[in-house]
């Protein structure tokens, strides 16, 4: 039993299950980031010829043409066919969505008001790209992607072609001239109240109906759609629109099949000249699989994976996605696993290892701001476990194989999640805990029942339907797979900026732009009301602006291929943008930074009105001086209860603001005529949002990041450990919003061994009984501890866990911290 250590490092260190998987991972890690203009070049060529065609049919024709022209690249050792680009790590520039950021970059202009705050990362593939650019005469685009000089010239022409035709420009023409509060939006960008324009990558948070795609196969869907057209009896003029969508659907499916057939042909060609008999056999097998799926139903597990991958990839190619997701893949693939006598857990794991590398290889290129916000992550969320339509647990052998593949590979994609339910199998949960302990940060845990309750309240869909289809699309946004409009939203609203406005009579302290009327609050209620009114304006304008933009979306880049696989688009004869999906209130309004608002209001209430330690004016002055010369006052501000300590003084303020936000968001209908759903999440917004904000009354300094997540405390202000954070967080009614994330940091020794895993699972269970919605564990590594040395204020609550020993990280001298880092690194 001598297994434990004083302070441990990573307990679980996985290795790829065979040399092929190891090769894939190494190849990925050593590859530069490439921009591939092939798809957009062909799409543009077609677009020039389809002028005047009905919108949906034109979009389908252009996309199908581009698909049929794409090069089918099969890389060395590949068993799974299908790549988004010709390169290992490649991105398609979707200038049909937004040409503007690229043109501005070429013209050396600033892309948008926030691009200067975007952080692009420096290491890994980005480093490789920059080195290669310097060596081989490539042009560097969007700070990290390589493009050959020849392609660069072509790309410039393509961008110019789309300059006035792309979604973004068409949208701008609408809202900038027709929306009464257009100036509010533009000023909102200038001051950082809103994240940068989202048009470069608006799609995502979408999950297709892979179950049907696999079971029916494309040929059956084409046949059924043709029958619909033949038997169609329009009852009114508007009905005739259906024909367009159906015809577009058939066109786009044929285009998809053309690309698949290119892969089959390429595999056959390669097989002919292959001298290694084993590889030859593999290529012939790949060809055979590609001749069968996704056109028809898979005959075994491997074909099921290939069929899924093609449909997934084809949906990915169609739009500029961020958060487009595979959903409940374990559940979808299980019937094929169960019925395949030759598949083993090990073989399945190996297949997933290759697929996960392929998912990680997909890059996205957008505006610098949005690249920074996503940090290169595509948020392809694969969620395991949960219960099925009958309320029975649906974790299975495929779930275990997927977890094992991620443990072995430790890749940034897919974003792995678990739907939590009491009924889940213990072995499955222990395997999930094992995966967390690799330090990869996955899986995140989501409470399935919380989201089920949300959809029962807001959608009115039957319980069985919600249970069966609920999944996570993107980072933490729950949705119903195969039946929801993707969450095509405007971007993020920065609650933190509203504090700046409250503190400065409605004027942004950096730009001097007035965003709200001037007020002199005399009571705490006045302060609160001032914030609420500013929040109301910020949200409502943002929603109304986006409703107009989405008209342009419908007219430029409606998703046709994706609509084919979202119910009930085909049955209704409508694409998603026309309301074809069954769930249309899925267009959420996203925001982040509410914790800082609540903390700040608590400080104002306590110091200015309850205890009258200082006046509101004095506090404003201190904040505008970035607390310089006001250190004693800042100490008092920090001593006021902050969110995350289970203290009702602050927690009630947070809950009040949370309710106000939810009520207000759902008071506006979206462009599909359903109420907007409230949602809060963060991705990387706390960093750039914090950079544009002044110091806050809660003690935060100017430019510091905002609180992470949604209910995560501001770094360093939670004093009573993770259980107090959870007690605070569980006061929130998570059924009101879609998303609501909580990140917890743990030193590896706190999760060590079987008992460590069990304690972690008990923690999750306790939070979800309350009920919470999401929790994610970051296992502290030595890199994080080095950061903790530089920024101790962010790690106030980090406890170095040694039996019977009492010490917080920030109370340890540098020499001792070094010792802990050394031990963490060396697994002692």
């Amino acid at each position: 039993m001598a297994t434990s250590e004083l302070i441990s490092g990573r307990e679980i260190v996985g290795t790829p299950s065979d040399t092929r998987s190891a090769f894939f991972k190494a190849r990925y890690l050593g590859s530069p980031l490439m921009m591939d203009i092939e798809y957009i070049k062909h799409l543009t060529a077609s677009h020039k010829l389809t002028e005047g065609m009905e919108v949906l049919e034109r979009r389908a024709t252009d996309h199908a043409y581009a698909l049929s022209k794409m090069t089918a690249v099969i890389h060395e050792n590949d068993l799974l066919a299908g790549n988004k680009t010709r390169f290992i790590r490649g991105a398609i520039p979707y200038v049909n969505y937004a040409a503007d950021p690229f043109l501005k970059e070429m013209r050396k202009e600033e892309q948008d008001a926030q691009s200067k705050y975007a952080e692009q990362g420096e290491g890994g593939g980005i480093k490789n790209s920059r080195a290669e650019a310097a060596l081989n005469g490539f042009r560097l685009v969007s700070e990290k992607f390589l493009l050959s000089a020849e392609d660069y010239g072509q790309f410039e022409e393509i961008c110019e072609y789309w300059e006035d035709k792309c979604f973004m420009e068409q949208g701008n023409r609408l809202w900038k001239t027709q929306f009464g509060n257009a100036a509010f939006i533009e000023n909102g960008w200038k001051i950082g109240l809103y994240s940068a324009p989202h048009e470069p990558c608006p799609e995502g948070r979408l999950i297709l109906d892979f179950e049907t795609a696999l079971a029916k196969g494309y040929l059956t869907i084409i046949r059924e759609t043709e029958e619909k057209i033949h038997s169609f009896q329009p009852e009114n003029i508007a009905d005739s629109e259906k024909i367009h969508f159906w015809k577009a659907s058939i066109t786009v499916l044929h285009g998809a099949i053309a690309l698949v057939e290119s892969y089959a042909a390429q595999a056959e060609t390669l097989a002919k000249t292959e001298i290694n008999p084993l590889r030859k056999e593999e290529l012939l097998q790949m060809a055979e699989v590609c001749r069968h799926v996704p056109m028809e139903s898979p005959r075994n597990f491997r074909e099921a994976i290939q069929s899924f991958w093609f449909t997934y990839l084809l949906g990915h190619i169609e739009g500029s996605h961020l958060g487009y997701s595979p959903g409940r893949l374990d559940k979808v693939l299980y019937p094929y696993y169960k019925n395949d006598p030759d598949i083993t857990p090990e073989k399945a794991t190996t297949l997933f290892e290759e697929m996960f590398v392929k998912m990680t290889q997909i890059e996205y290129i957008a505006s610098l701001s949005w690249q920074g916000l996503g940090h290169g992550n595509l948020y392809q969320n694969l969620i395991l476990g949960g219960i099925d339509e009958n309320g029975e647990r649906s974790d299975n052998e495929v779930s275990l194989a997927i977890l094992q593949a991620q443990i072995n590979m430790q890749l940034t994609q897919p974003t792995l999640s678990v739907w939590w339910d009491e009924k889940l199998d213990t072995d499955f949960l222990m395997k999930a805990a094992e995966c967390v302990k690799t330090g990869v940060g996955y899986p995140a845990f989501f409470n399935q029942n919380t989201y089920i309750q949300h959809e029962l309240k807001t959608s009115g869909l039957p319980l069985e339907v919600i249970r069966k289809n609920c999944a996570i699309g993107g980072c933490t946004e729950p949705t119903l797979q195969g039946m929801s409009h993707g969450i095509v939203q405007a971007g993020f609203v920065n609650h933190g900026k509203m504090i700046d406005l409250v503190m400065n009579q409605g004027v942004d302290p950096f730009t001097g732009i007035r965003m709200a009327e001037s007020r002199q609050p005399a009571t705490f209620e006045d302060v609160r009301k001032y914030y609420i009114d500013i929040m109301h304006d910020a949200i409502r304008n943002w929603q109304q602006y986006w409703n107009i933009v989405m008209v342009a979306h419908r007219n430029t880049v409606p998703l046709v291929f994706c609509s084919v696989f979202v119910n009930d688009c085909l049955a209704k004869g409508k694409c998603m943008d026309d309301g074809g999906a069954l769930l249309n209130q899925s267009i959420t309004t996203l925001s982040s930074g509410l914790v800082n608002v609540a903390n700040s209001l608590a400080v104002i209430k306590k110091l200015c009105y309850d205890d009258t330690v200082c006046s509101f004016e004095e506090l404003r002055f201190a904040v505008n001086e970035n607390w310089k010369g006001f250190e004693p006052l800042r100490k008092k501000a920090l001593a006021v209860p902050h969110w995350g300590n289970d203290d009702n003084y602050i927690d009630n303020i947070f809950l009040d603001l949370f309710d106000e936000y939810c009520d207000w968001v759902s008071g506006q209908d979206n462009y599909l005529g359903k109420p907007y759903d409230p949602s809060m999440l963060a991705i990387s917004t706390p960093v750039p949002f914090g950079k544009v904000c002044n110091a806050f009354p809660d003690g935060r300094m100017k430019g510091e990041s905002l609180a992470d997540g949604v209910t995560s405390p501001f770094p360093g202000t939670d004093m009573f450990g993770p259980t107090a954070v959870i007690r605070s967080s569980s006061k929130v009614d998570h059924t009101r919003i879609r998303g609501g994330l909580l990140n917890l940091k743990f030193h590896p020794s706190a999760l060590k061994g079987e008992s460590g895993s069990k304690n972690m699972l008990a923690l999750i269970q306790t939070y979800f009984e309350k009920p919470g919605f999401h929790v994610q564990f970051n296992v502290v590594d030595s890199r994080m501890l080095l950061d903790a040395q530089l920024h101790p204020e962010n790690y106030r609550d980090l406890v170095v866990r040694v039996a019977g020993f009492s010490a917080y990280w920030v109370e340890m001298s540098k020499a001792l911290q070094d010792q802990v880092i050394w031990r963490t690194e060396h697994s002692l």
Partner: protein
Amino acid sequence: MNGTILTIQHYAVHDGPGIRTLVFMKGCPLRCSWCCNPESQSAQPQLRYLKFHCKACLECVEHCPTASVSASDDGMQRSFDECNICESKVCIEKCNNNAITLSGKEITADELVKAIALDIPFYRNSGGGVTFSGGEPLMQPAFLLEVLKECKTLEIHTAIETCGWAGRKSLQDIIPFTDLFLFDLKIMDPELHQIHTGMPIGPILENLAFLASQNADIIIRVPLVPGITDTLPNMESIAEIMHANGLEQICLEPYHSLGQAKYEEHGLKYSLEHLGLYNMQQINVLCDFFTLRGLICEVA
């Protein structure tokens, strides 16, 4: 009733089963040279000075009513003899950088139970509970007993980590309300025990035998200190004592020097600077030693 504690640590996972709340109590009769919580030894609250937080603003020097802090080259210099931790504690209040803090605070039994009870759902789902550590919890017997009783009323699993030096009556009183004893054994040789801990071992062994005779649930904890507790004869004696008392579970706590800085911060002297640290192999060998003698051995 009031007690004096250092801190309450939530989500503690190394001192008893499941997710626990760890209460560090002030005051210990022993003075072990390897102690990693030296600030727990004195029963009184103590000032702590974190030099690396100090920005040398000297506000404390200016306001100290007893002139027991003075300016030094790079911060403040505190005279521990003259500072009697005055009522005003003005130096703490005046410090904007949290460089001066107080180790130890008074708390009522009710307040402590309330803090412990906050995490009941976590205990229930993990099989956890509360562990009283320190310091020596039995240095505050009446307070401990009251808190333990209240915890049992709330059906919370209770554990105490004890050095075994306690009055027989105090020990007897808490048995019905204590689910688990984490009982420290250090040095079996009476003379060496006296030298390294400052107290005789006799009463400790008698208390252990008494607890065992009452069928208390006991895990022996041994701090592994190079050359002091990890000698073969000492370990052999510990194994023998355990067999004699019918005990099976032992937990080794390898020496670490993480507590070292806390000595200086509290104006105390650390005497083990020369000691080396264990590596995994050495710990495994020591653990095997007990496993081979039929004991269930874990490493904390």
